[in-house]
């Protein structure tokens, strides 16, 4: 079920765990010298215009820029992605990992019952709005694409 970052859509919010530093010796050594080793979590923060350069954060603190090709070469398994990712599959259970964005946005989501740790499913993605099924609450919330991209879900193995 888990896939490496090279096979998946790379967009802001995608998180992955580094499993190995890849086969490019120079890249691997550079990363090692910066303190990046198998086991750390990388999160894509943003993607530069024209799309080939990515800003990632390591374990939520230090940020660095890396090219997509080099990021793909890392053996890095995706553990979380935004709701808008095309890799999110329908009718499969995910868990909300983070609700990013400002405090006001988080409060608005909270008011609709969306918060961290919740089990969710997506039932329908054809319209621009995403229908999010909150499993335990037995409730369906419709989210706009701007809202959905700030909600990061993680893959559960249930």
């Amino acid at each position, binding site marked *: 079920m888990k896939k490496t970052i090279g096979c998946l859509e790379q967009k802001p919010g995608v998180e992955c765990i580094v499993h190995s530093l890849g086969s490019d010796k120079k890249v691997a*050594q550079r990363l090692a010298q*910066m303190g990046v080793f198998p086991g750390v979590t990388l999160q894509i923060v*943003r993607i530069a215009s024209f799309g080939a350069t990515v800003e990632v954060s390591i374990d939520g603190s*230090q*940020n660095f820029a890396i090219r997509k090709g080099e990021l793909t070469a890392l053996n890095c398994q995706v553990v979380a992605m935004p709701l808008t990712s095309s890799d999110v599959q329908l009718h499969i259970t995910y868990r909300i990992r983070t609700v990013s964005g400002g405090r006001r946005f988080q409060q608005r989501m909270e008011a609709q019952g969306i918060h961290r740790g919740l089990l969710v499913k997506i039932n329908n993605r054809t319209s621009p709005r995403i229908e999010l099924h909150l499993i335990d609450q037995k409730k369906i919330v419709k989210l706009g694409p701007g809202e959905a991209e700030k909600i990061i879900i993680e893959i559960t193995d249930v």
Partner: protein
Amino acid sequence: MSEQAEKIVVALSSIPNTGKTTLFNRLTGSSQNTGNWPGVSVEKKVGCFSLGEYKISLVDLPGAYALSPVTEEEEVVRSYFLKTPPAVILNIVDAGNLYRSLGLTLQMSTSGLPMIVAVNMIDEKRKVDIPLLSTHLGVPVISISARSGQGLPELKNALYEVIKKPERSHIPHISCPPILEEAAKELSRKIIPGGPLEKMDSNFLAMRLLEANTLSDTIHKTGLGNFIKQWRGRIEKATGETIPITCAKCRFNAARGLVLEATGQKADLPNDQNKRIDRILLHRRFGLPLFLLIMFLLFQAVYGLGTPLQTYIGQGFDAAESWLKVQPSIAEQPNWLQSFLFDGLWQGLAVVTSFFPIIALFFIFMSLIEASGYMARAAFLMDNLMHRIGLDGKAFINLLLGYGCNVPAIMGTRILSGHHSRVITILLIPFSLCTARLQIFVFLTAILFSAAVAPLVLFALYLGSFLVIILTGLLLKVLHIAGKPEPFIMEIPPYRMPTLNNMILRTRQELKDFLYRAAPLIIAGVIAVWFLTHFPADVPAAGAHTWAGQLGQLLSPLFQPLGIHWQETVALIFGLIAKEIVVGALAVVYGGGDLSNQVVQHISPLQGLSFMVFTLFYTPCVATIAAIKAESGSWKITLFSLVLGLVTAWFASLLLYQTGLVLGFR
């Protein structure tokens, strides 16, 4: 007593972005000297200060993550330590980025050299247990603020004590996989460090030998090559990765534990303020337009302010020249001497001085962009476009500013990371249409073309300049002229407020550097052109019979196919001094009178266009050549740049002129 008279070398080392430059400036003030590290284009800075009875020579090492070489900077630091180890290491770490900083600190502390660690409290949010760090590292640790100067007296005291009593309490042990430790132990017994390496821990030296081949002969004279190779093979087989990575893993394991103990926090803290600024400056849609706006303002600020200043300086020199010329003591001198003094030496001085305002402004704004942390963001935004011509994003700023003046743009390449980027950017900048060339083009297009066509011709020349930069970039990328690019993994530093002190010192240093490194070559170049255009002595200056005139006629078979007459060739030779004087030179060569009429009479629009294309691409001026030599530190690259410019100019003009003729233009 002799010990006290000689300077004590202290090496200032850190990973990038820890406030190293600020500390360096704080300690040494204005007594700094810059140069290049031998054989590479990495800047070397040395400053002096006194501490009690000691004279300290502080060497500013380039920012490096480790002593295992990946980048040119790391290679410099490694060879510095293995060839000329300092008396004391002064290592600065960033309290907010402790984990990453400590990787280098731990590696350096195992060297056995006397060492001091300064913890730079950039933001005060984090509490660091200083005594605990000191106990673990076995060296004094001082908390400072490089920006405010807090803790600096304590740092100096600690440094004084270490110089006085250089014994280390202990060398920290970093546990490695057993096979690596065994190899290091075996190897350390075989090497007998002599000379400058005597004070270094032999285990540390053994590790350096195991991780890379470079400089191994400075550590051991006897052939240990095979022994090391065998061990390396065994270790890599056992651990499944290269030795530098294994070493880094051990170091950072230790660092992680140390950070947890010293701060009570697991990892380094996220910076919320940065996130807010980045949300605007790196915005998905507005980030790039904002960057272009900032660049536009920067360009305006440097050249909008600098060019008028240049004009004033030029006028000042002219006024002084006319005053000097009528002074009896000078007017009595023979003609050739007067000519040498005014058209050679004085002219050379004027050219050198004219660069001062733009170099100063350029570096004031550059250091603002660099120190604030925006440079890395700009590199991120532009990376994809620049990557296609084999450069990283930072080079864009240099290339753009080259359209104002090539000289500061080339001097600014030292801000770039990596030998590859620096050399390629240095080679590309001379093809940008600088404002001095623009003056020639504006003058000629106004005479040769109608008011409707002239702006289009100018626009086409700009396009031609972009095109040649892109094509040459692609060509150089394919040719691997500057070696392989380093992997692009760039730390995005937190935003910081630049300090005025740093900006002033930096700008002063650059001016001094320009004066010492580039100015002599510029003056020599100007005098050489004067010589060519004024001798033999008994013929009119710049005429057909001077050496320049003869050279122009000699070269005419080469320039005939381009539609360039020998008179214009002489003007091009003058153009080596500075492009600003080409128009004036044309007037002299065509024998005076109204230059517009002369041009219309002698040059057809197509020939004029060909002349402009040649002017656009051939060597900009002696100042640019001098800057290339000073920055690259290599005559080979300087010569290559010269040839590249001439060949490109020749072919571009040929293509244009011959195509024009075929299409029926004149």
